[in-house]
């Protein structure tokens, strides 16, 4: 192994443009070379099994696990994956390599046999890659179908505004409609983060990811709202554990540790902010550009049924609003408070 080469920082972040030509060390390409024979064999058998979606079958292959694990992990990068990988070294080290071998056969049947790594992918994506345009679809696997569908392009939004205006809707109601769509989409993303697949992740993991969720992306302002949001988390979890409806009811210890940490409130406030569109607490910027089509509402209903493994995701959004002492003009919810708060 060439010792003088440094680890390529871009490659670790998943954004190295040079690929094989890169001057720096990409862990996969360097290590496969000296062990050409050994890896080659694995590579060969991996290739044959490639038609399995994402090479999940490879993990259960009869190869000896001990050294082969490491081998397989890197091999699954190399022959089929372009040098670009989205996944940080953290997820690499998890050993759940099956997720990384993206399926270039385009069969796209991603079976998440490892929800943990999938969830990690989703968390990372939402943390580092949150696009400015929220009304989007999302798929955590590169060539797989979307996890969240119902994307709306800017042109559609604007066209819907035109339609609504023609039908005589006021600007205010158009803006309201669009805000609902945005909130709904955000809660959809939230739901996905918490429960990507039916296989339940550990509750503590889901808690920690939720905490980290909004922290980097949004600057935490309005500290007083942060207080109420933190409260809402506590209240919400209490209610859901009382109801016992959700499989993600956090244990008491998790809840205790959550509310006691000082960072919690800060991230929670950022988190709460993330639900409300950035334009809301100020005035809605340039309302003529914001609009919404009735079609999206229907699709939203379908998606909600699809994505809501448990209800509390949607309630969380409302919960934070209900617990606020004071509402700024844009935040006034339209629906009645849910029963827990009465």
């Amino acid at each position: 192994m060439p010792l003088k080469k440094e680890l390529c920082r871009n490659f670790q972040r998943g954004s190295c443009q040079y690929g094989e030509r890169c001057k720096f060390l990409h862990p996969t390409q360097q290590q496969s070379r000296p062990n050409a024979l050994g890896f080659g064999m694995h590579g060969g058998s991996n290739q044959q099994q490639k038609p399995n979606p994402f090479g999940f079958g490879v993990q259960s292959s009869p190869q000896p696990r001990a050294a082969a694990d490491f081998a397989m992990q890197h091999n699954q990068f190399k022959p089929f994956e372009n040098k670009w990988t989205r996944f940080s070294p953290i997820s690499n080290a998890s050993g759940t390599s099956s997720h990384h071998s993206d399926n270039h056969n385009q069969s796209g049947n991603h079976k998440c046999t490892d929800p943990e790594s999938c969830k990690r992918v989703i968390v990372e994506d939402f943390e580092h890659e949150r696009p400015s345009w929220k009304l989007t679809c999302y798929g955590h696997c590169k060539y797989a179908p979307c996890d969240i569908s119902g994307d709306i392009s800017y042109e559609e939004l604007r066209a819907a505004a035109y339609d609504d205006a023609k039908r005589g809707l006021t600007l205010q109601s158009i803006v309201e409609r669009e805000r609902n769509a945005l909130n709904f989409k955000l809660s959809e993303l939230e739901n996905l983060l918490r429960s990507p697949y039916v296989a339940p992740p550990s509750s503590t993991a889901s808690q920690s990811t939720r905490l980290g969720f909004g922290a980097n992306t949004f600057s935490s302002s309005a500290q007083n709202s942060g207080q109420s949001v933190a409260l809402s988390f506590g209240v919400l979890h209490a209610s859901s554990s009382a109801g016992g409806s959700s499989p993600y009811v956090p244990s008491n210890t998790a809840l205790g540790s959550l509310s006691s940490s000082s960072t919690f409130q800060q991230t929670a406030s950022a988190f709460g902010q993330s639900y409300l569109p950035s334009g809301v607490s100020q005035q809605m910027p340039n309302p003529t550009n914001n609009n919404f089509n009735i079609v999206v509402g229907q699709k939203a209903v379908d998606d909600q049924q699809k994505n809501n493994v448990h209800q509390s995701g949607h309630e969380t959004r409302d919960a934070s609003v209900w617990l606020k002492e004071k509402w700024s003009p844009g935040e006034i919810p339209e629906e009645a408070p849910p029963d827990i708060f009465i």
Partner: protein
Amino acid sequence: MTADVELQGPSDAITALSFHPSDPDRLLASSWDASIRLYNASSPSDVKTYTPSRAPVFDVTWGANDSSKVYSGGLDRSVIETDVETSTYRVIANHDDAVKCVKYLESANCLVSASWDSTLRLHDPRSSTPANSSSSVSAPLPSKAFSMDSAGDKLVLAMAQRHVLIYDHRNLSSALSSNSEQQSTTTIEPYQKRENSLKFMTRSVRCMPNGKGYASSSIEGRVAVEYFDQSSEVQKGHFAFKCHRATVDGVDTVYPVNALAFHPMCVFSSPLLRVGFG
């Protein structure tokens, strides 16, 4: 090296630009102000404006090389042919929803339009039969069309839900010609169906000038470059890169990549613009 030329733009956001396939000076621009403008880069003051309809135009494309026809589609759900010399308009076809992309395929002699109604339609612009008759072939798409481009013998279409379909020109032209002969419903088989390798909504797709592949961009500030050839050798060459990312107040902000263009001489793509309207 000639200096940059500034052209007087339309009064609202520009939706599409199209250079003439053989005359590099002539440029078409379509806009939300419902106009199509024809520019001449060598004489910037020479601007002709056309208004095929009162609805915003989403895409515009040059017609056959030697003709003076351009085709456009917009919010009024129709594909309209404009003769830039005589300023006359003719409705070629209709969709059930806004027409998002139009493209004239020189090699296939066919006009392709894709719409938010999730159909791709082929038209023969030379036919003088009225719109909506059986002179158009319609193919269902998995989702709403967002962006379309063609080069070589392939047509790439990017849709909502990250779907991508690739069509072969020869299939399209044979579908169109068989349709006109038989007057029966013909189906168009896509050459390939893919899900985009990017994770968020696709904004734009552009084919490489050498016809070997295409680049697609999404709202997550990323561009993915992929090849048509399905062999694993070539598939290894797929890559993607991040772009249009900025750190605003310490927060890594991700901007959408709204438009792409390949330089006709260079091999690599040069992503252009970013962010919302205008």
